[in-house]
């Protein structure tokens, strides 16, 4: 039983680290990495959930969900990276800090 608990706990830890990274870090790439960490944490928890008490009976549904989840997070990361390049192109620094915003103030129009 302790391994099940260990896996769950590590999944939770991954989620927490990812959450902290996403919120606190200021560099865009760090945020994207943190997001991936969070989703992998969740996948770990889901997979662990698939194993019933007696090792024999494995529930296939979480596996299907995790597969779809991985697909989704890949495509999200792809879009995120493209956006980082676009932001980089216009603001020549991939930071999403508030002071970055203040410099933009002058040229914002719809």
């Amino acid at each position, binding site marked *: 039983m302790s391994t099940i608990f260990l896996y769950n706990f590590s999944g939770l830890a991954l989620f927490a680290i990812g*959450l902290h990274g*996403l*919120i*606190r870090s200021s560099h865009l790439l760090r945020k994207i990495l943190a997001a991936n960490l969070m989703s992998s944490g969740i996948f770990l928890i889901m997979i662990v959930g698939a194993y019933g008490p007696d090792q024999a009976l494995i529930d296939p549904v979480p596996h299907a969900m995790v597969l779809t989840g991985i697909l989704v997070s890949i495509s999200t990361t792809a879009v995120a990276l493209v956006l980082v390049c676009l932001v980089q192109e216009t603001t020549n620094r991939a930071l*999403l800090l*508030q002071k970055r*915003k203040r410099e933009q103030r002058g040229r914002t129009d719809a």
Partner: protein
Amino acid sequence: MTGQQVLPELQVLLLSLGPGFPLVIALGLMVPACRRLAFSMVAWAPLPALLASLYGPSAIAVEVPWFFMGSLIGLDRIGQIFLFFTSFLWLVAGIFGRDYLAADEKKYRFFGYFLFTMSGNFGLILSQGVLGFYLFFSLMSFAAYGLIVHHGTGEAMRAGRIYLGLTVIGEVLLFMAMLIVTRDSGGEIAFSAIKTSRADTLLMLLLFFGFGIKAGALPLHGWLPLAHPVAPVPASAVLSGALIKAGLLGWLRFMPPDQAAAPFWGEFFIVAGFAAAFYGVVIGLTQVDAKTVLAYSSISQMGLMTVIVGGGLLVPDRWAQTTLAVSLYAMHHGLAKGSLFLGVGVAKKKWTGGKKPWWLSVGLWLPALSLAGLPLTSGAIAKYGMKEIVVAIPEPWHGLASFLLPLCALATMLLLYHGISLIRPATGRPEAEQGQGMLFAWAANLVAVAAVLWLWPGSPMEYDHFLTAAALWNGLWPAGLGVLVAMARRHYGRGVYEKKALIPAGDVMMVGQWLEGMVQGWPGQLVFGKSGKDFRPAAGPDRETWLRRIEPRLKKGEKILQRWAVVGAIFLAVIIALVYYFYRG
């Protein structure tokens, strides 16, 4: 002269022609196209009313349902008397005015208002219903303003403003009185059917002051001495001759002869009457302008009539006789005062300076003596009618009245002498030629003054009693004594009273001026704030003001919410809050 029974439609036509005909001519005056034709007929406007008063049947009332919430027109005994002398006076004034104002460029406007006032006057005499009476009473009062301010000078405007103010207050008091009367008589508006309960002090007060303003009752008489000097002569003749009598008629109409004696109100009227009589004379003597003096004499004469009405209230069963006596006295006073005013006008136009021509002094002295009640004049007859009422009233007032009445006659003589002596010759070049209309009108009026009460069917005329020595002496000594005292006063007091009136005309109006000053002065500012400034109630919520103040804080709030750290914190806070509420629930 009781008219024979005439078809109702014809009666309605005849009676409605009274007020109707002047209206038609007035409208004709307004339309420039037929202005000239209308002007030529102005003088004959009162003719139908005069004919109606002479030939109309003595007591008929005709219902006209569609006109203004249902109104009645009719001619009763006192109505006939009032209608006769009013229409006669308007006729004389009209003829006189046409010549008097021939040169005046605003004469169309003057005669427009002249005709409106005339129609109002006739209407209120003819109407037998409360509403009709009030309608024509208001028409007459408001139209008279046009007569007063005709010359447009500063004092004319001021007199007009005061007159209008008092008239509006009078209208409002009458409005309330009429409401109460109609409610008391169960929604009935015909004079014959209304019941005014004498016990209702509010109603009686409203009636006394409502009509008192018009009839020159003491505290509210201020407009009379101010209006007469500024108004052109024909206008002031009609003003004092016919207009103020409307107040008297109002009292008679609104206090029908129900049985409950009202001792308090009888005394109130008598006291008010005598007060007005003597007050008028005392103030009149201090004046320097002839027309003002005549105005004050009108006030005092109206005081006398108020006394008679008071008498009638004290002795309700003699009410019919009282109304007759008062109406006759009113008729005589109207015509006499009218001729005096016209006399002043004639003097101004025809007297070219030097000694007063003989015909002018005769024309002036005849009505004056008649007013003072000299025997063998119609004035004496009118006064005799009054004495019969005085005899009937209960003891305390009988003695007082019989003592004061001769004194009044003396005072009147005194005042009239003073007035006549103040009449001045024409200053500018007198237009001698076309004054004939004026002279004719004046003369006709004088004849009427002399003869009217002799010929009038109903007047209390027993020759035998009239010619007794006592009656002759009673009539003679007040007039004679009055003339002697006046001569003495003129001889010794020469020059003192000539220049400036000790008390400004319209004495009580000084209070009004003080009040007006107050409103403009600091109390007014206090109450109304700066006058003329745009009085701004609570200004609507202007977006600029309150939003501008808190805008920077709001913008900063939004900035804080944008930071990721804050977002993360809020994010966790929401999760924890939800879990907490799930548990607690």
